């Protein structure tokens, strides 16, 4: 893409932002009128959002959008996925091109407070790490003084590396690319000693390299990267929908409700399950949906644990352990407020 096209696109997005009607209808209304949800996802990162062999989008971030679509339309297929680079994602959300940004995006204060968006929750607790070629014989990030480091722009990653090396008093040479494929190609060609990104992304990337066994992820995690879906600021109802769909998936895991047994669970005597699945109470009304919203979401993508294992856990090629993403009662950080 040359400059004219690129600046043109950005300018068009800005113009859309500038020309958006001052008083807009609610996002839920717009989504209902359109008949489908538009969801901004990564251009391709295994386990989070990537098209599978049949061209269907799959991943833990994709599941969030499918669950929301199921809660609204009772059909997880009514989603249009818009692949975005790290650089494009916020403008796409701000200008109304997408309804949800579910693209391994770190929740930070500046993004939450001055970028025109709100985070709805955390669907993956991550942290930034380093990957190096085994042949360098590096065992720890503390040995990286003087190394060249490949980074993708438009992420919190650039700042974290700078902070880490400033803190430890080491020097390094950054090589910054716009897109992930070029970043990885440069790392692979030996332009850099180190590729740095969120740990989950390092594992996903390692699988795509010629011989994954030649590369190791160093033990240090240098930052907190709580990843989660975000929505435009100023529409509390829409934020509530996304937030509570996310919570419902975590609660479902805690209560033992899965996509397989959710129909049987409708007859459960547990009041918590009854409230969640809409058998009891009127919880759908509060978010402008039918009372079976959570039932539909769970039936479509399974509970949080199922989604995790299928996309990034033992059921996937990534084989990432639950770690911080285990339920709170199992020593992890995933904890959802109750539905009552």
């Amino acid at each position, binding site marked *: 893409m*040359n400059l004219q096209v690129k600046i043109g696109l950005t300018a068009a997005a800005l113009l859309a932002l500038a020309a958006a009607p001052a008083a807009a209808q609610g996002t839920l209304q717009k989504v209902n009128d359109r008949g489908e949800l538009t969801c901004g996802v990564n251009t391709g990162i295994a386990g989070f959002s990537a098209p599978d062999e049949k061209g269907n989008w799959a991943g833990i971030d994709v599941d969030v959008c499918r669950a929301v679509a199921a809660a609204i339309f009772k059909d997880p297929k009514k989603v249009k996925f818009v692949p975005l680079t790290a650089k494009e994602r916020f403008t796409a959300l701000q200008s109304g091109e997408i309804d949800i940004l579910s693209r391994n995006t770190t929740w930070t204060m500046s993004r939450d407070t001055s970028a025109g968006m709100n985070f709805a929750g955390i669907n993956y607790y991550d942290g930034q790490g380093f990957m190096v070629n085994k042949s360098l014989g590096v065992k720890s990030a503390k040995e990286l003084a003087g190394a060249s480091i490949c980074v993708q*722009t438009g992420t919190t990653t*650039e700042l974290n590396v700078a902070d880490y090396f400033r803190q430890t008093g080491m020097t390094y040479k950054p090589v910054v690319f716009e897109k992930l494929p070029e970043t990885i190609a*440069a790392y692979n*060609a030996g*332009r850099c000693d180190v590729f740095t990104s969120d740990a989950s992304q390092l594992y996903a990337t390692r699988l795509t390299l010629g011989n994954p066994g030649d590369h190791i992820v160093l033990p240090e995690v240098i930052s907190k990267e709580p990843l989660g879906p975000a929505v435009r600021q100023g529409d509390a109802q829409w934020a509530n929908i996304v937030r509570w769909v996310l919570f419902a998936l975590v609660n479902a895991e805690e209560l033992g409700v899965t996509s397989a047994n959710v129909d049987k669970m409708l007859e459960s005597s547990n009041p918590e399950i009854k409230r969640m699945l809409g058998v009891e109470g009127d919880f759908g009304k509060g978010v402008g949906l039918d009372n079976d919203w959570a039932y539909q979401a769970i039936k479509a993508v399974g509970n949080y644990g199922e989604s995790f294992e299928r996309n990034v856990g033992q059921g996937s090629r990534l084989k990432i352990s639950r770690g911080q993403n285990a339920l709170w009662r199992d020593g992890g950080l995933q904890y959802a407020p109750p539905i009552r």
Partner: protein
Amino acid sequence: MMGREPVTFKAPGADVSHPRRSPIDLIYDPKARGIFLQVLLVVALIALGVEIVSNAITNLQKQNIASGFGFLDRIAGFDISQTLIDYTNTSTYGRAFWVGLTNTLLVAGIGIVASTVIGFIVGIARLSSNWLIARLAGVYVEVVRNIPPLLMLFAIYFAVLKTLPLPRDSIALPLSSYLNVRGLTVPKPIWQDGIGLVGAAFIAGCVAAIVLGAWARRRRIATGRIFPSVWAGLALIIGLPVLAFFLAGSPVTFNAPTVGRFNITGGLTLLPELVALLVGLSLYTAAFIAEIVRAGIAGVPKGQKEAAFALGLSQGQVMRLVVIPQAMRIIIPPLTNQYLNLTKNSSLAVAIGYPDLVHVFAGTVLNQTNQAIEVILITMGVYLLISLVTSLLMNWFNARMALVER
């Protein structure tokens, strides 16, 4: 939309000096109508502009997106691989902007010179009477001109990366320089006291060369005798600083690069990203310039050349004194376009990791501040300014080269 004054028929005996001009008559006056419509258009355009700006501000505030230019004074916090001016990750976003801008200007400046040189050589080669040279130049133009520049950059960049060895197997060059996949590292000169003398000698050499040139020209016109002022001028420009350098006692030391665990450390490094970008942009733009040069030379009437040969001028003199000066008038205007294209295409740097203005400022800074409107406005303004200045210089040059008709 200016029409001519309508012909007015005068009734006999009517007051000729004061034609009646009531407001109703103005409707039938094409000139007045034209002015009215133009004023209406301008007012509508201004109203549209005001509406867009105020709507953008309202929406930004409503969505709680930060605005204003205060972010330029905040700490950037990220690092940049090539900085021509002092910059660390504790510098401000404003400073990062200047780093990006100087990097863009570096590429544009060197790229313009290189593409012009290659373009002229290839353009003249296409007109060569040597069949092989003319065909080779033709193939070059046709192939390069028809490949998207972004693909060329990728091809060159990854070709460079694949060809060069890893740092551990660096190619050691003379003068303790090293070449590897991370770039070409040479000793970094550190200037000591007395270097000012060398600078002064350089300026003095330039002034002397200009004076000498003017004198040689006057003498040639007066007496017809030729003085080799180009060589003498070069000798002055190079010789004087060299002399001053040794007189001042070689006021320079070198920071020689050494082989570290990961990289060559110390010294000055020429990044592979910069080389790939320069080579790609220069080769691409040169193909267009070559065609412009060929067209310009072909546009000089054949009789001019024949007349020059008839006067006994040599092949080189015919080219240098008769053909090229006339061809320049055809060449310069489209050449300006190519210079502007090269400058704008330099933003493709973002794809291969060269930290130009778009990469650093409209990329990283935009993402970290989330102030897309301000950042894009500044970036577009800068490219507009660079392009306007380039056009201005080229127009001035064009006016100088234009045919002075007597």
